[in-house]
């Protein structure tokens, strides 16, 4: 069938021109029939051996995906012709390595809020809370479509700070879908910040380590490819300019020149398509090699940026999976797990980070909060007992320590030394400097802090945090969540909890996760939003947390299945 394919895709065009004048304006009217199936010789019989649909957030994202296929020296797909309406064509490729003719129908613009779709067989179904840039499905003989094979997120620029949380929901949704969906997050290795006028270069913007580690942890826990693909941009070369680097070297992954980046994505995508068409077995060795190469690059990025600057992640830096001397071994273990769709076992399993890792390798918790976004009472009555501040005076530190049941009155040691000696009794975290979540072993002390701060707080919530009747309570994971900007927008914070849970799945279990929403812009009728189920922020809180406290209203609630 494939050998005769070319003859089907010859093109006819008809051009008709007509001009006329309309009032004072000139209306130029021309018609040219499109190259579409109806005008191709034998078009109705023109067979495709297989077909896929490429859904996109918009036409640009769809074209990025088609460009992967069009890199024919890497993909081994040869473009024969584009057929159909300008805005929604079918690209017909010949698979050079296997000979079959495969069509890719571009379906841009999902449209609509949430998972609603402009298309009759919308590809998002119930698995996705957001819209990835591209989702690929296979078209069956009867015209129906399969569950998606692949979702891709194309990112033009590294996002600043916590903006990255927002998109982190997408790889989680894909990995947790049933059946799971491969996910590729395509992003530059480095960018450069400019001032608002665009006139001055401010400084480099690095890849955040946390989303990369969250995706590696998804791979580890679920055995599903959740990958990052790195683009080498012009800023990569710029970062190495000696004149600009000057006094400071800009950290880049040491092996960046060996990164295969998008080539790996093109190869993986081609193998995924071929696996769907011909069955996976013939492609397993190539799949495993390419997955191993991608994982190696992710490990390199995770190691580079987990060990640098304000985003230093001490628990991960010390984890065997990020040991540079064992990177190839780790990549091999992960790629095998991804092929076999099994969790990673043993010392490289990132999803098995436990409370002891926090107490032994973690650091004291500190959450950076903007003064203007909170009630002063929240800072004084709650945050100052959660936040360890190296730079604070001894009074602050002694008050903090005593809140956690550590008597400092007769001690000769400095508060810093006392704090280090009692680390496992204090809120500890995974990130140095500014962090987002704390593991709290001393739940009784936390209950006392919350009881004093929130007189209206339901006893049931306090009992959920700590009760003498409940023995052997596991450490509680506390996430203070800003959640609401003055505008009422809950982005990007609504992405934080899924990122945290995918990074520490053993710790953020529902029966031990407490969310403290602290923005003074939180709607007073938050319970209504929680109950209605139409708000993504509250849906996420309800799904992940066992209880929530809202600072603005001073009350809280136990969430379903919170095991009170």
């Amino acid at each position, binding site marked *: 069938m494939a050998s005769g394919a070319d003859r089907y895709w010859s093109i006819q065009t008809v051009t008709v021109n007509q001009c006329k004048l309309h009032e004072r304006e000139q209306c130029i009217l021309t018609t*040219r029939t499109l190259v579409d*199936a109806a005008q191709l010789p034998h078009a109705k019989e023109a067979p495709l051996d297989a077909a896929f649909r490429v859904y996109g957030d918009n036409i640009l994202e769809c074209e990025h995906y088609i460009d992967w296929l069009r890199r024919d020296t890497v993909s081994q797909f040869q473009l024969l012709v584009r057929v159909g*309406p300008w805005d929604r064509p079918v690209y017909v490729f010949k698979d050079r390595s296997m000979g079959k003719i495969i069509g890719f129908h571009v*379906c841009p613009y999902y449209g609509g809020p949430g998972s609603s779709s402009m298309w009759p067989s919308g590809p998002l179904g119930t698995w996705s809370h957001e819209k990835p840039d591209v989702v690929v499905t296979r078209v069956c003989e009867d015209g129906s479509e399969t569950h998606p094979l692949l979702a891709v997120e194309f990112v*033009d*620029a590294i996002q600043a700070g916590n903006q990255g949380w927002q998109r982190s929901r997408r790889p989680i949704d894909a990995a947790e879908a049933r059946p799971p969906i491969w996910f590729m997050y395509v992003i530059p290795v480095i960018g450069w910040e400019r001032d608002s006028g665009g*006139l001055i270069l401010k400084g480099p913007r690095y890849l955040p380590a946390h989303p990369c580690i969250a995706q590696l942890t998804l791979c580890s826990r679920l055995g599903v490819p959740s990958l990052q693909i790195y683009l080498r941009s*012009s800023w990569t070369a710029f970062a190495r300019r000696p004149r600009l680097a000057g006094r400071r070297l800009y950290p880049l992954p040491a092996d960046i020149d060996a990164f295969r980046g998008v080539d790996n994505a093109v190869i993986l995508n081609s193998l995924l398509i071929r696996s769907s068409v011909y069955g996976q077995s013939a492609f397993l060795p190539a799949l495993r090699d390419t997955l191993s190469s991608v994982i190696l690059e992710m490990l390199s990025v995770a190691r580079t940026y987990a060990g640098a600057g304000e985003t230093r992640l001490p628990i991960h830096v010390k984890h065997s999976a990020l040991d540079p001397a064992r990177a190839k071994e780790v990549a091999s273990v992960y790629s095998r797990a991804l092929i076999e769709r099994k969790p990673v076992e043993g010392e490289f399993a990132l999803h098995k980070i436990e409370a002891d890792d926090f107490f032994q390798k973690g650091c004291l918790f500190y959450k950076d909060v903007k003064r203007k976004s909170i009630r002063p009472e929240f800072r004084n009555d709650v945050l100052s007992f959660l936040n360890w501040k190296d730079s604070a005076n001894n009074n602050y530190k002694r008050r903090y320590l005593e809140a956690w049941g550590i008597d400092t009155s007769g001690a000769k040691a400095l508060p810093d030394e006392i704090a280090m000696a009692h680390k496992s009794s204090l809120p500890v975290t995974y990130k140095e400097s500014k962090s987002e979540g704390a593991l709290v072993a001393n739940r009784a002390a936390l209950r006392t802090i919350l009881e004093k701060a929130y007189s209206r707080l339901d006893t049931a919530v306090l009992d959920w945090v700590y009760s003498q009747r409940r023995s052997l309570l596991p450490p509680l994971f506390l996430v203070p969540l800003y959640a609401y900007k003055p505008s009422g927008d809950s982005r990007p914070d609504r992405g934080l909890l899924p990122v945290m849970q995918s990074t520490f799945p053993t710790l953020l279990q529902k029966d031990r996760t407490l969310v403290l929403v602290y923005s003074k812009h939180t709607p007073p009728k938050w319970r209504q939003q929680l109950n209605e189920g139409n708000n993504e922020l509250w849906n996420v809180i309800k799904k992940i947390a066992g209880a929530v406290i809202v600072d603005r209203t001073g009350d809280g609630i136990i969430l379903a299945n919170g095991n009170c």
Partner: protein
Amino acid sequence: MITIESLLRYVPRLHGEQGVDATLHMLLRNQEHLREHLREVSCNPPGASWARLEVARPRTNEVYLWDHIPRVPPAKRPDSVLQFVEDDDIHFLLIESKQHLRDIYPRMGTLLRQFFTGSADFVGILNRPAWHRKQQGSEEWEVVPPDASEDVRYWLKLYPRSLIHFWTAFVFALEPEYGANESPRMDHETYAAMGAVLKTASLDAIIAVRWCGTQHTPRVVLVYSSDFSMSRFSSRLDGLLEPAILR
């Protein structure tokens, strides 16, 4: 058996602004013979975050890139920008696209131009340094460093303003946006409405899209101002739209 025709029978429930943007973008992307004189400077359909503008520098083989341009009202970032390159003159067509003709807003042309020329709180593209450049046809961008000469970083700012020309256009989907007839004739009322808006909104072109027939093929109808219709840019635009124009 799956055929092309069976794939193309699968159509969206609604095309709207996304369909309008996709039609324009793909007409240019897939007519490579037009690109010598007509370039896509930017394309920013709904949902896109590709805030980048690529401008070809006349008399050179270079393309410069402006990226990460913030949205600062009242200046409006065009949904699409085309560049007509001929001799020393630089012509830009700044396009706003919406779902409906009624979505047109006051001072649209002025606000679109301000994205290039600037407004009170916004440094326009013309006055911003370019941060990247490449040779035409190349994929490899290089950073234009802060210590590069003014002639390189600010070539557009230093370019004679008399040689930079802005044209503005509005593109929308007709109501109803779909018709079963493969080749409908456009009614006089639609032209009249478009012509009236062209004059009152002080724009240079208005383009309407309707999707026709079983495959929902996009067809366009356009109206030009008399000034624009006399420009060579308009004939290039005709060439671009010609495969989709509806009689």
